[in-house]
């Protein structure tokens, strides 16, 4: 971050320095059944989004339409995943927030009321999300049920009832939790200052504002090139090099040893964002865009609140919809219906893409499958889209509050680091130093 004499961020460059691991290269030549399983393993937080996006990218390339009941099971898995992910993020958000009417920050692990009941509700929502996900998806963490062509198996009528009961319980809890979080976030928004390292830091009214656009493909699920009206357009996307985007070599000349957890980076340390960035900068219509809860609400629900609080509130507004989607799908689900396509083509190498609306944003996978084997693969993961956008959102904030802005994006950085860089003519110019 470049800050001025008042400590206000003039420029923020937020990037990932986790080494590139080349999952796209590793997947080449593997069978189309294997690729989603490999994709599921690039991250411990988002295996469900990656499994669904990769499976559907394969299906999009081979042009395989899956039966309705298989799709319903996938939507249930998707919504259940989003439910427990929002609940997990609540635990990460609460320590920045204050108990309304007090100057006491919330410790979600406290045994005192009212926090204790909130924590219990969060855990119950996570249990509900994970259990429904485990029933529909086969396993709670790395789902084993989705496969190219549909799902391995449908659920039993008893399992369907179980999911229904859980969803009904979750619906009420999610509504309560959503309202609680919104009240806490609005309280934060009304405050003049937040305490960081013993100092009162003024909270600007435009905390986290940016003027980049939004990208979302659906309010709940996603889109793919098989759709009648696809909602994502590969030709509008281009990946640019980090060295065209980030700062060059700089020497850090400001430090604050009192900043929580060991202080800020020591003065005198050199940093070189251009060269250290391990992700490319994806642009849509020539600009970085925001993906995630607010992008979905802006695109599909006429939501319009900017800034970090607006983004966090959008996330809470998604709570009830996860359960309503599950209930709606369960109403339609026929446990005796078939869940595997009769005919699974082996592919002729055409480009197929699938965009999954993961909790933290649009996860686009692109693939070419020929004779059942992967010929080409690319993953455009949510946080890669958000890194440059969030960098812009840091401008104008006191540097001590930068973390709060970053947390609003619910970043997941480890899978954001793999890249293929193209120049203006769309030719691959580098596969980055670390490979």
């Amino acid at each position, binding site marked *: 971050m470049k800050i001025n004499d008042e400590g206000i961020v003039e420029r923020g460059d937020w990037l990932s320095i986790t080494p590139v691991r080349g999952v796209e290269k590793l997947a080449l030549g593997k069978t189309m059944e*294997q690729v989603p399983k490999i994709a599921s393993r690039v991250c411990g937080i988002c295996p469900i989004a990656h499994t669904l996006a990769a499976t559907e990218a394969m299906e999009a390339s081979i042009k395989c339409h899956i039966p309705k009941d298989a799709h319903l099971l996938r939507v249930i898995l998707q919504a259940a995943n989003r439910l427990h992910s929002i609940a997990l993020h609540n635990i990460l958000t609460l320590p920045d927030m204050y108990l309304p009417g007090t100057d006491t920050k919330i410790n979600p692990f406290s045994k005192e009321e009212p926090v204790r009941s909130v924590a219990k509700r969060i855990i119950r929502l996570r249990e509900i999300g994970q259990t429904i996900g485990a029933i529909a998806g086969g396993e709670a963490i790395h789902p084993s049920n989705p496969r190219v062509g549909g799902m391995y198996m449908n659920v039993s009528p008893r399992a369907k009832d179980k999911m229904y009961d859980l969803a009904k319980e979750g619906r009420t809890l999610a509504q309560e939790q959503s309202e609680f979080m919104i009240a806490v976030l609005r309280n934060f928004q009304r405050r003049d200052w937040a305490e960081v390292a013993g100092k009162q830091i003024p909270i600007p009214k435009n905390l986290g504002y940016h003027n980049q656009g939004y990208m979302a493909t659906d309010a709940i699920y996603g889109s793919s090139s098989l759709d009648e009206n696809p909602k994502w357009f590969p030709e509008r996307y281009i990946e640019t090099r980090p060295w065209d985007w980030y700062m060059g070599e700089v020497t850090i000349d400001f430090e604050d040893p009192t900043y929580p957890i060991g202080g800020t980076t020591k003065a005198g340390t050199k940093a070189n964002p251009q060269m250290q960035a391990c992700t490319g900068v994806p642009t849509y219509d020539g600009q970085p865009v925001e993906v995630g809860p607010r992008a979905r609400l802006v695109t599909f629900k006429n939501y319009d609140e900017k800034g970090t609080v607006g983004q966090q509130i959008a996330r809470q507004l998604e709570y009830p919809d996860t359960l309503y989607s599950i209930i709606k799908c369960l109403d339609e689900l026929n446990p005796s219906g078939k869940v595997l396509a009769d005919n699974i083509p082996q592919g002729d190498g055409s480009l197929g893409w699938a965009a999954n609306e993961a909790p933290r944003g649009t996860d686009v996978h692109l693939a070419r499958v020929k004779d059942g084997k992967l010929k080409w693969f690319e993953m455009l993961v949510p946080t890669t889209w958000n890194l440059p956008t969030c960098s812009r959102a840091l401008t104008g904030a006191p540097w001590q509050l930068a973390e709060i802005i970053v947390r609003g994006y619910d970043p997941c950085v480890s899978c954001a680091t793999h890249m293929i860089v193209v120049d203006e003519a769309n030719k691959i110019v580098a596969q980055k130093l670390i490979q």
Partner: protein
Amino acid sequence: MLYPKIVITGCGNPLFADDGFGPAVVEELNTFHLPDDVKCVDAGLGGPHFVFTLLNPEETKKLIIIDIADFGGEPGELRKIPVDDLPPGSYRDAHSWDLTEPLLRLKDDIEITVIGCQPGRISAPEFEIGLTEAVKNAIPKTIKLVLKEIGVDYGTAVIHQKEHRGRGAAETCSGPGEA
């Protein structure tokens, strides 16, 4: 059943060679007919922040964790590691969630067994699929050990071993016929 009495979790990443040991064992275990109150979870990389919502100390009595562990043995060697012997911070994922502390908190309510296998090769941060021979050979031994832990007779379980229900992650990562 929402909360099983016994939870068996395999931790690790099949994309880092022998780190895929835990998921591979769970994959294989899931082909056995196990009692209804036993649940095998492929925890992958998500152990710390996912598994704990799947346990309930009131109903869950036993947790078995299967993972690789460097205890200076021969590759493929197995060892039961008492929870108290886990050094602080020894279990962390990419997001720095420490598993040791929650395990220490849980150990009075749930009986915890950690089965560690000495890895031959971990490729991280580079991706590499497939277990080394020695570690692959440790899978049946581990399964016997786990079945003994949960009081299931190995012979009976093997007779009723079923076809793979769906291709789980560990197996499919290695590709058909390679596992």
